[in-house]
């Protein structure tokens, strides 16, 4: 009798142990499966959200060209279908990576999308769409975080291989790790004519085309350029539907120059300001004289200069001081066609050129918008190839959940 009881007890204990072990194993598997499913759902959501952003122009549809806050968020170019993005809507996204700055003369803070000295793009916060607003308009606030990056696929890098007379520039065209051979390269060379004294600089321009070799290299030779001449060189590469852009500038002075700041998209207005007002060099230095022009990429993939009337403010002067002299100048871009604003400047016998894209694609500037993704538990990504005014970009969305769950191990 006692033996039977002990047998029963042992049997029950073993049975309970087996049940607990089974439940434990099963629970672990179920938890992992649920987490997998959530990750899978996040990936699907990421793909859907990316399409939502890229296949919808937002509202108003041309909000990129207006000074309004959109009531619906989307980046598609309203004049096209498919994955073509508006070069102006992209300009209005507040940069995630650039260091913002405040211009003390107007008190406005600017989103900084610049790509190094001479290649500037500053958009006032009052005109830029920030992450919080975009997230709200997309309906992802408090549920998902995201980061959107739009990166040009074709890289056109330019280097000086011979600095003077003749100036020789090497143009290297590559895709994502693969050279683009036999690509048509259309370029614009703009040299600042040194006048000396307190005058607006003048410039000479040259437009030409060439082809890359098997290694994706092309050479452009410019006669009558001295080692102390300031110039800008812009190259567009084109092959089988792929378009990329590169640029290179040489200045003779890097402290006193003009900085272009976007003032109004709707009015197409740009403020040209003295660099000392931004970088706070000291002591205050002399006025900067400038002469601006505008070039655009035509449909046959050649560059063309678009004349600007004097009434646009193409000629002028800016000063650092607080006196009665004009501290910044206002310039009106003559068109909504994307192009490049080129500003030649002269100050105290120092010369240079600064560029600003009008439409993000004109200089193939990358865009990084959204929130920081470091430290997130799980991030889903998806990519699309997109076109921005014929320039090929890769759009990548990283998405993560804010609702908090984790894998237990």
């Amino acid at each position, binding site marked *: 009798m006692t033996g039977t009881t002990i047998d029963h007890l042992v049997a029950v204990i073993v049975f309970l142990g087996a049940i607990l072990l089974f439940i434990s194993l099963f629970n672990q598997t179920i938890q992992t499966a649920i987490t997998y499913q959530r990750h*899978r759902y996040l990936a699907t959501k990421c793909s859907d959200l990316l*399409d939502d952003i890229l296949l919808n122009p937002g509202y108003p549809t041309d909000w990129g060209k207006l000074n309004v806050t959109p009531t619906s968020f989307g980046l598609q170019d309203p004049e096209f279908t498919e*994955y073509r993005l508006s070069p102006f809507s992209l300009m209005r996204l507040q940069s995630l990576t650039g260091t913002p700055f405040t211009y003390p003369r107007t008190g406005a803070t600017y989103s900084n999308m610049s790509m190094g000295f001479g290649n500037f793009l500053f958009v006032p916060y009052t005109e830029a769409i920030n992450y919080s607003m975009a997230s709200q308009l997309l309906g992802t606030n408090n549920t998902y975080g995201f980061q959107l990056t739009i990166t040009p696929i074709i890289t056109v890098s330019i280097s000086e291989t011979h600095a003077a007379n003749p100036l020789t520039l090497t143009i290297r065209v590559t895709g*994502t790790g693969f050279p683009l*051979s036999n690509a048509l390269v259309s370029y614009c060379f703009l040299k600042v004519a040194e006048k000396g004294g307190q005058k607006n600089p003048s410039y000479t321009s040259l437009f030409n085309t060439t082809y890359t070799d098997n290694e994706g290299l092309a050479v452009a030779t410019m006669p009558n350029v001295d080692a102390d001449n300031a110039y800008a060189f812009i190259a567009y590469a084109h092959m089988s539907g*792929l378009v990329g852009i590169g640029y290179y500038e040489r200045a003779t002075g890097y402290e006193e120059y003009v900085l272009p700041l976007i003032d109004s998209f709707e009015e197409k207005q740009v403020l040209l300001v003295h660099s000392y007002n931004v970088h706070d060099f000291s002591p205050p230095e002399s006025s900067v004289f400038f002469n601006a022009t505008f070039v655009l990429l035509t449909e046959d993939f050649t560059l063309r200069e678009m004349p600007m009337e004097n009434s646009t403010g193409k000629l002028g002067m800016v000063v650092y001081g607080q006196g009665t002299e004009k501290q910044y100048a206002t310039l009106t871009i003559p068109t909504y066609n994307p192009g490049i604003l080129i500003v030649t400047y002269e100050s105290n016998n120092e010369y240079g050129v600064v560029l600003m894209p009008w439409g993000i694609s004109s200089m193939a500037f990358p865009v990084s918008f959204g929130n920081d993704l470091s430290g997130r538990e799980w991030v*889903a990504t998806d990519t699309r*190839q997109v076109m921005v005014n*014929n320039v*090929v970009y890769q759009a990548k969305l990283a998405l993560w959940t804010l609702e908090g769950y984790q894998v237990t191990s």
Partner: protein
Amino acid sequence: MIASIFTVLPQPRQVSPINLRRLALTTLQTLDGDYDLSETIFKDPNDPAWGQLQVALSACLPPNIVYNLTVYEVLGGTTQLYTPIKSISNAENLGVGTDSSSYLVASSNVTFNVIPEKIGEHEGGGTLYILNCSDTNGWWITGYTAQSLAEDLYRLLSPYFQATIMVQNTTELGQLLNGTALQNETLQNAVVINTFGEAVPIPAGYYASTDVGYDASQNSYAQYCHTLGRRVREYNWTWISIVGYPLYYVSNAGLFPNEQNTWGIYGMRCVGPAGLNAFLRGLDDQAYSYDSNGITGSPGVVYLSSDALEYCNYYGIYPSPYHTATRALPSSITSTYHLNVTTYVFDRVGNWTPGAVYRHQFPSDSNFTGALFALGLTRTPDIRLTTLGILGDYKPRLYPSEYTAAGTSRLVVLQFGQIGGV
């Protein structure tokens, strides 16, 4: 153990995959951004352009993506539907997880035709009369001649009508008003476009005679406009005034050789607002009475209606979306003369209607009897608006022609695979 055996969890790559199908589609669209892909795939398989396509394809993809691009000829009839033409790839195989997108491309040599439905094809009528009278002068068509406008209207509208007749002189117009067809066309339910702006051709003889065309007591030809309104009702015509104040002048170079419209244009006589008032009374079968009170207004800048904008896209006609209206008709005419607005070309501004098709309907009648389409804009006329208004009102359908002819279409299939990782 049992649970582990029966619960098969997905591989990490399957949990959060890149959407290869979308990536393939957008890659194809990118490569065809300026129609380079469309051009290349119709070239000889040995053409160097294929090499460039491969370079471009390799250059625009992330390094972990391998591809296979295959182009198929699309054939019709009883033969095999898809025949492979050429394939390019950068890998021997695409691994276990692949996805693809297809893209149908038409040769640039293919011409697409659109065949419009003919107005009147089902309900009868379908004749378009364009007044092109050589013995008439126009007013407020500055920069054009009535003849040049007539030619453009013929080009734009004749594909949509069963018959298009140019009325070459006022004698032919008189013949029409008598109910006699010019070329055995159907007179009933026709559309008549007056290309002379604010002036209207008047035939000499019967239609200029006292109590038919001429009001002797007022020394006015407003009574001709009344007769015209009656004829429009009787024949169920749609009378179109392309610009300005409708029927403000009557013109016949032979009838008025020494008279001018007070602005130096001879062969023309001013009727003033009495012309339109008389026309509307005739259209509504009211007895003629002389009424010289102006009824139009000047709402200024006016905008195309949402319907008109939709028809712009459907018919491929793109006039400016806004214009200036200085001769807009009042809304009150709809009740005074039993008119229904069937199409608004422009949005109304208050009580003013800058451009609309008014169809007359007696209260006891279910059918329309005559219509007026008036564009009360300031000079000069834009005949695209006239075309848009007519097409928007009759709504003829467009039938795109099929393009299944052999050799005109090719199918591009781009298949992607991922390498590396699990």
